[in-house]
């Protein structure tokens, strides 16, 4: 929107990629996308949907089925799933809703859409073994509190593992706020 040209103002049909559903379904957890029959149990069970104007799991699943790839993957609302799994537990059709939504977020990451928080978490794990950078003071306080010292992760092993699965992609991409 920042660099609008005359061309982009033209109304264009939504770009459709009919093979998108297959792309989702071949990922671990994405297999059940095709059996969603749009009853809306997921959205009506979703805690986020009650407080968000835009987050609707049913809509996202339909968009994915139809192949509205770009719009689905670039949507910021994709990241509002709390991973509470209520939708999955309640789906009468056996759709692994939360897993399908997670697959969509994973695919968004491969397109470079990474909310900053996830780059930070991944980089912390790589650098310390922990998801958060535990302040030195906290570590020192443990002995005062009678707690054993904080376990030390073999970082070269964890780093290698993350590298092997391609997780470094997450750490490198810190584009989005």
């Amino acid at each position, binding site marked *: 929107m920042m660099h609008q040209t005359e061309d982009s103002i033209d109304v264009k049909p939504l770009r459709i990629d009919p093979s998108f559903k297959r792309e989702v379904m071949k990922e671990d957890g994405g297999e059940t996308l095709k059996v969603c029959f749009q009853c809306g149990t997921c959205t009506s069970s979703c805690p*986020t949907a009650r407080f968000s104007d835009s987050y609707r799991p049913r809509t996202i699943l339909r968009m994915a089925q139809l192949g509205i790839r770009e719009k689905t993957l670039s949507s910021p609302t994709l990241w509002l799933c709390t991973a*509470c799994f209520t939708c999955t537990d309640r789906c009468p059709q056996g759709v692994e809703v939360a897993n399908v939504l997670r697959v969509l977020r994973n695919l968004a990451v491969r397109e470079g859409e990474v909310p900053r928080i996830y780059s930070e978490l*991944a980089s912390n794990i790589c650098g310390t073994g922990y998801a958060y950078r535990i302040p030195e003071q906290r570590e020192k306080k443990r002995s005062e509190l009678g*707690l054993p010292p904080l376990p030390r992760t073999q970082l070269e092993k964890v780093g290698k593992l993350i590298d092997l699965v391609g997780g470094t992609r997450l750490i490198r991409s810190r584009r989005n706020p």
Partner: protein
Amino acid sequence: MMTNLRYLFFLGCTIPYRVSSYEISARKVLSKLDVELIEMSDFNCCGLPVDPADHEMMVALAARNLCLAEQQGLNIITLCTGCATTLRKVNRMLKENKEMKSRINEYLKEIDMEFKGTIETKHSIQAFKEDLGLDRIRQAIQRPLSGLKVAEHCGCHLLRPTKVAGYDDPEDPAVLKSLIELTGAECVDYPDEPECCGYTVIGIDEKVALQLSREKLRHVKMAGAEALITVCPSCHLMFDVQQSRIERMFKEKFELPVLHYPQLLGLALGFAPEELSFNDLRVDPSRILEIVKEI
């Protein structure tokens, strides 16, 4: 005489980062109940925090932890519902899905490890129910907390997805309730009990997250509970640490103390509040402690 229980203790990240009171009280209580915790010296984050962005990385991180436990031949116990569900889920996926197992083992081979599928992982609440047993805990109660009215918050990952957890009904959870009731405290029902605390989206949309916590605090308060009992460091952060912010944001007073379950159980086992790290709680628990003192 039952044999003592031994577990490998998976501490996770959130507890040492911000919620030591949970660790302190849990260690006290477990030791009193003759549950032995073996320190896990080389664990890494369970993987859950990065799952939304990279599932394969989550699986690999969890698998490394499972391999460490297999090497020591011990089952894992956790205090965090997120760690619990993640390790349990990945353990199960790798045991059942041969293709995934061989793929993950290819990575693990590079760091001299192999997933075999020889151990189990449990949240402490599940271990209380299945391994320790309610009777054994009941026998250890020294100061029944009768007269105290509390509510429970299990947290999503203790119960869901049902396929992974499977030992309680997420629509009408009973396990934590029964564990609360054996302390002598009354556990009141309230609307939407299994609802999410909101923690997982606080880094994405703070308002949505805090609205979720606020709604729960309201429901708990309306039910007449004098405290909310949690079994997860993240849920605890939302209800205890964030409570004053929620109060300011929505101009609403709750002043609802939020205790870790081991703090409640610890009181009933005869520990003093200081031993259970009550002074670390943000919301002043003194009203509860007054009630307990009178017992």
